[in-house]
């Protein structure tokens, strides 16, 4: 498994699950927080990726 995007999604999923479980007590609230966090992680990674695209690395 060498797809950067897939690995990023898996990582974001697992971290979101742990944080949502830590922060919320009710399963419904955990699901909502986890989904929001996952979306934010993926959106931020894509946005930062595009912003860094022109940089000479």
């Amino acid at each position, binding site marked *: *498994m*060498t797809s950067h995007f897939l*690995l990023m999604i*898996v*990582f974001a999923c*697992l*971290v979101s*699950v*742990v944080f949502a*479980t*830590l922060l919320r007590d009710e*399963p419904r609230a955990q699901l909502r927080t986890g989904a929001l966090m996952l979306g934010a992680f993926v959106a931020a990674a894509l946005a930062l990726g595009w912003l860094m695209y022109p940089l000479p690395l």
Partner: protein
Amino acid sequence: MKGMATKSTTVERARAAAEPGTLVLLCLAAWALPGAGHFWLGRRQKALVFFLALSMMFGIGLALQGRIFPFDFSEPLVALAAIANLGLGIPWAVARMAGQGAGTVTAVTYEYGNTFLIVSGLLNFLVILDAFDVAMGRK
């Protein structure tokens, strides 16, 4: 009625766990096995989620050929990564004893593997702190 009984049982367990000796044992259990602290306190759903998610992160990190860092204090970043790795208790010890986590620097997924391994340990430190807070009656 059933929900109230479960909640009062959880509160009673948390109260009993607030003794200093029990708190130390609770934190040690939470460190050794992800989710064990919450299981002890009767929060089984959370315990199961922590156990599965953190074990999976650690396993994926090893599968991606990440490295379990040695305690080399002459290199501060390596030492900090080693402390982060240490956060996962028994899985970390078993992996080290089994000779896993040597890390392949040339592998494409090496840095990903390191990230999974380090973050799983750091997240378990947060889980330990959460179990401590629950036992102290703060949550």
